[in-house]
């Protein structure tokens, strides 16, 4: 008996504990130096940072409007960047006004739809704004987009409200039924960026193409055999494998792709695999976004500070004694409101750190921040009452000069958040007539 248990224990621990590093340095080649070209060559980037659980509204709300505004206590970390951020008031996603307190609101923060209540069988959201942008610029950069987080997907179904937690763990949706999995290991992200930026050697690319051709053949064969409902899964497979095939073909073709990295990645600079704490983990992910944008490996990124209903402990912050979700249900107690504010401000500080890094990255006469749109958003205003009105939203950067930053735009009450997305898609170079429930561009944002 003893031996069996011992053996069992060992194998479980092995299975659970040992992560595997894939080799990636072998093909290291000097990437061509950044060809400094004119300003016109500077692409616009788009990043979306999502914070769960809403904000302490009085501490968050900036005073004044237009160019004459004051940063609130929560927004203090942005002081040095005041002229490079835009603040918003009175935006919301009407589609998320009812349903439950969290999933309905948070899963739809970038889709502006009403998600379908399900334990998983029939997931339905919309396409998210970042993915629309990524799909419309596919092929211009090695990676169409990056989806990042720091906590693994939340497991299971929230039986109390009847939604699968898949909703609460994804803000990027390639289509209404396909959320995009996130990478949470900073080292893997770096390796992926490095590989993508270095490109596949022609010979290896040819082999990959052979292999992909074979497995795509299997998929087509299967597709003809299964029922209609199952075809969706095979189509998903075909879609992701085909886009990989296109990339491989570009790499394997003799005529070189027009894309060049705007900066080189040092493989020795790869970050640790397991950050020591939450704060370091978030910082490293901010660095990954910055590096991805600097090198132009991708122009679209999303990041989740936590999943829906996240109760990450913030006791590492001085003056905070509880978890995030717990504190957000402050019940108007003064002490909890103070802690709520501290947690919110910490998130804003991480955001400010990313903006700061992008601002240091020169791009000709401008900086990467000047050529970016980095949104910070929560899908609730007051977390205690799950309030979906007047969402806390900031946009950093000037979107390549299109965004009139340095103002607080106060829209009329309950204006569609989707209007902001229409303007952002315009600045990104992928204009749309409408996005979800939009009624037009967001007044006062674009130059």
């Amino acid at each position: 008996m003893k031996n069996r248990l011992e053996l069992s224990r060992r194998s479980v621990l092995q299975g659970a504990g040992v992560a595997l590093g894939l080799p990636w340095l072998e093909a290291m080649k000097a990437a061509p130096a950044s060809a400094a070209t004119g300003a016109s060559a500077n692409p616009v980037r788009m990043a979306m940072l999502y914070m769960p659980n809403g904000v302490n509204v009085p501490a968050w709300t900036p005073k004044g409007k237009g160019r004459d505004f004051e940063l609130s206590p929560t927004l203090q970390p942005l002081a040095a960047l005041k002229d490079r951020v835009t603040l918003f008031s009175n935006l919301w996603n009407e589609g998320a006004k009812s349903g439950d307190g969290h999933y309905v609101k948070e899963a739809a923060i970038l889709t502006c739809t009403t998600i379908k209540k399900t334990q998983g069988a029939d997931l339905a959201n919309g396409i998210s704004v970042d993915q629309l942008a990524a799909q419309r610029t596919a092929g211009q950069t090695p990676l169409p987009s990056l989806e990042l987080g720091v906590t693994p997907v939340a497991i299971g179904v929230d039986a109390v409200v009847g939604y699968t937690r898949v909703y609460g763990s994804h803000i990027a949706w390639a289509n209404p039924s396909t959320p995009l999995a996130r990478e949470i290991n900073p080292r893997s992200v770096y390796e992926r960026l490095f590989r993508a930026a270095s490109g596949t050697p022609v010979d290896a690319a040819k082999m990959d193409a052979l292999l992909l051709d074979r497995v795509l053949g299997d998929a087509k064969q299967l597709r003809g055999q299964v029922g209609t409902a199952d075809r969706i899964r095979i189509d998903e497979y075909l879609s992701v494998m085909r886009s990989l095939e296109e990339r491989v073909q570009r790499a394997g073709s003799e005529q070189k792709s027009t894309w060049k990295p705007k900066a080189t990645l040092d493989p020795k600079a790869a970050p640790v695999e397991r950050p020591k704490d939450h704060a370091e983990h978030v910082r490293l992910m901010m660095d990954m976004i910055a590096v991805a944008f600097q090198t132009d490996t991708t122009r679209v990124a999303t990041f989740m500070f936590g999943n829906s209903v996240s109760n990450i402990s913030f006791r590492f912050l001085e003056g905070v004694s509880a978890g995030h979700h717990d504190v957000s249900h402050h019940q108007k107690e003064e002490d909890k409101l103070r802690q709520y504010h501290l947690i919110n401000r910490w998130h804003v500080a991480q955001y400010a750190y990313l903006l700061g890094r992008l601002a240091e990255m020169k791009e000709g006469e401008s900086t990467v921040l000047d050529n970016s749109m980095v949104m910070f958003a929560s899908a609730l205003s007051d977390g205690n009452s799950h309030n979906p009105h007047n969402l806390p939203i900031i946009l950093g950067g000037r979107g390549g000069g299109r965004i009139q930053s340095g103002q607080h735009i106060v829209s009329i009450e309950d204006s569609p958040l989707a209007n902001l997305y229409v303007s952002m898609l315009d600045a990104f170079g992928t204009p749309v007539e409408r996005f979800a429930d939009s009624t037009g561009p967001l007044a006062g944002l674009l130059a």
Partner: protein
Amino acid sequence: MRLRCAIPLAVLLGCAAPVYAQDQGFARSQSFLKTYCQACHQGSSPVGGFHLDRVSTPASLKAEAAKWGSMARRVHNGEMPPKGAPKPTVDELEQFSQWATQALRAAACAGGIKPGPAPIRRLNRDEYSATIRDLLDIHLDIGSALPADGGGGEGFDNAAETLFLSPIHSEKYMEAAKFATDFAAKEFKSRQKLLIAKPGPGVSEEQAARKILEALLPRAFRQPVPAADVALYVGLFNAARKQGREYEEAVFFAIRGVLVSPKFLFRVEPPNRTAAVQPVGDYQLASRLSYFLWGSMPDELLLDAAASGKLREPAVLKSLVGRMLRNDRSLGFAQRFIEQWLGTRDLVGTKKPDPKLYPMFDNDEELRSDIRLQPVLFFRELLTRDLPVLDLIDSTHTIGTSNLAKLYEVKLPVPRDASKQPRWMELPPNSNRGGILGMPAIMAVSSYPYRTSPVLRGAWILDAMLGTPPPPPPPNVPALEEAKAGAANRTMRQRLADHRANAVCASCHSRMDGLGFALENYDVIGRWRTEDAGQPIDNSGDLGPVHFKGSGELRKVLLDRKDLFVRNLTNKMLGFALGRGLTLEDSCTVDAIVEEVRNNGYRAQALVEAIVLSVPFRYQAPLPVAKPSAVPVPTKVAALQRPGERKE
């Protein structure tokens, strides 16, 4: 047609007004709907496009089952009637939704037991790792590079519906396949297993490669592979040779292709194109069995049994269950099932005890792994020793290690030198460590990382153990009264009493808090304590008219509700076994399994056997067509055995 069985708590827990009398149920449901719903849901443009006419006849329980299901759920959850409209009392809404749930089940089961859907399913991260391990005979957690999978259905990460694919998967699959084959090419054991032929006199390179692939492909795709399909992979080998690859490299390149094929990555069952329910194919059954109990591909023995056509015999299946559970690979099943069912996977994530307050958990890796594995190993012992599943509520034995003994402050009756290893040990009489309640892992995941919470623990028992999660809090929870002076010194019980004084909160909190208080003697990491914040622990709880004190009496209260517990465990395990969420029709299967388990002394293997022998596990529904044709369905008695398969 999905229904979360929203059986109202109060009724099940024995503290509510009587249910509708049997013969008046339908009439009373209609009078409930007239009183609370008719104002909006009638006329030419009913709100939400829903007119009460649709649910006005007993036949509608079958024809409009989905509508009835969502009605029962929304009423139970307090979503309907909406804010501002006259509200039913808690008793009224629970009577209504309980009656509706039961009536729906009865209507669905009247037609006999059906297999339900069996959607195509991608191997999840754990299954992918284990399958590559067994296929290539390499010992690597190759899937750790993949993103974690979310969960759906009954709450597991093997639910077909939520196993979607992202672009990142395609990259990772390509990299992992290369890594795995490069690794296997250097391992003696793998080479022995894979390279069963080599070119030489009279054997061309292509012939050798074909032999290798002929042996590998049926294992990789978990079913016989026609020669034409083998030829396609021989073609891949030839293409690699043409690109200048050496013979062996080209062989491993073809294997790499196998590992990225959808036939490897997905479990696909050829659809049933007849009009009747059919037994699932032999090889598909072998895969269903091995992914259920091993989380990996079928072994030679299972494939042989499938090939001989014997696998589908109930006696063979039954004998296999015991054998498979005793195999080391069933540990993966125990771990994935228990850690997701009970939520202990979060122990290393969001439910990790605060490192400053509980440094021993943070610093002591051995203790941490003992805590994490205790419920897993405990459950596996129940399976392999074929003990009653009720031991999960209370038991005479537990899994002990010297670290856990120290935490428990009990003396471990084993020699010191071996005591670090987990072992199955008898508990002293009147121990407070029987079953899963009181296990540090369980106490931690039902607490905040920094303090215990009777509310969370009560809700955890209702949800995880009894399958009756409390309804969500009302959208606008009225704030508790401003903290009174000196509030800081008040105990959790005093503070929660305020909460329960509020009628809106009390309806649910009186159920949750009572259960949770009985566990207050366990701190966040499960240590026994008799006082908290300088105040003695008051561990008395109540549930309606039932009063109890401490975890021992709580266990008895739960044992009094063993049918609820067993039903919930059955729901979870059937959902895990089928890899999908359960539907209303599945509740008939669940009824039959629960009965079988009860008749077999609640033995753990009886539960697994009953699931393996159930209709959804062994049969396949016809492919849905525009209009579903009449399907001969097995009678209720035949839930576990089809005619002609009577057990001896």
